[in-house]
C-alpha cells in the first residue's frame, strides 16, 4: 500500500525559502501570485494491506523521524 506524506511548516514559522521563491516569481511577472509556502513530499510504500494499520505505521514514521512537530505539520494520503 502506498501513501503520500506532505510536510509543511506551521503557519507562524518563517519560511525563507518560500519567500525567496515567491519574490522571484513576482519579479518574473507572475502578478497574480498571492503567497507560497515550501514543503516536503514523501512517497512511502508499506507491506500492509489493512489501510488503518498502514496509516498508523506511517503516522508513527512521521512522528518519530520524518516530521519536526515543533515547526511542521503533516498530511497523510493514500495514493
Amino acid at each position: 500500500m502506498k501513501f503520500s506524506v506532505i510536510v509543511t511548516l506551521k503557519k507562524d514559522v518563517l519560511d525563507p525559502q518560500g519567500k525567496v521563491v515567491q519574490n522571484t516569481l513576482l519579479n518574473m511577472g507572475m502578478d497574480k501570485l498571492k503567497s507560497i509556502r515550501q514543503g516536503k513530499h514523501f512517497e512511502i510504500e508499506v507491506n500492509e494491506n489493512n489501510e488503518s494499520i498502514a496509516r498508523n505505521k506511517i503516522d508513527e514514521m512521521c512522528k518519530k523521524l520524518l516530521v519536526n512537530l515543533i515547526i511542521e505539520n503533516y498530511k497523510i494520503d493514500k495514493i
Partner: protein
Amino acid sequence: MKSSVIVFPGSNCDRDIAVALEKMQFKNQMVWHKETKLPKSDLIVIPGGFSYGDYLRSGAIAGKSQIINEVIKAANSGCLILGICNGFQILTETGLLKGTLLRNQNLKFINKDIQIKVINNNSKFSNKYEKDQILKINIAHNEGNYFTDSNHLDQLKKEDLIVFKYCDEKGNINKNSNPNGSLENIAGILNSNKNILGMMPHPERMVDEIISNKDGINLFSSLLN
C-alpha cells in the same frame, strides 16, 4: 576528567574539539556512531559538522543513531553533555534540548567571528566567565536560528537556562547584533537539569592565540572546575 567525542559520518569539528580537550588535560576518546557502548565519561561532546549530509533536517538522522541511545541514558543519569553547532542541532532532534534550529533568516551560510555575551555564569559550562562578559567567537552554520514555543521560552528565562546571547562589540543585544534571526538572540541553552549545553558558536576554535583568541578556553576550564 574523562571525555568522549561522538563521531558521525560528516562530523568535521571532531578533531578540533579533541585538540582543545587534550590541551586542557581532558583524557579524551573518540567514539564512532556505530558503537553500542560509551566509555566511562564525565563529559560527552557532540561536535559540529554535517552529520549524514544534513539529510532530512540537520541532525535528524544522527539523532536516531545507535550511540545516541547511550548518550541519552548518560544524559539522564547526569553526565555532562556539550553539543556544538551540528551537535546542538542533534541534541534538539533527540529531545534532550527543547526547541529547534531553523535556517538562518538571511538564507546564507554564515562563517565569521561574532560576539556573544555570557548571560548565565553559574553553570557547569560557564562558571569561569564573568557575568555579561563579551566573547569573540566563531560561528559557521546554515541552520542556527533558534526557535521554541513561548512556554519553553518563559521557562528558559525563569530557570536561567540561557547561557549565551549574540551581541555586538559593546554588548548590545538587539536585531542588529543577531546574525541568524535566533529567538531573542539566543546562542546557547541548558536543559532544566543544567547538565546539557547546546550552543551554535565554536568555543573549540578559540583556544589558541596563534589561530584566533583564547575566549573559548574558560568553557573548558569551567568544566574542570
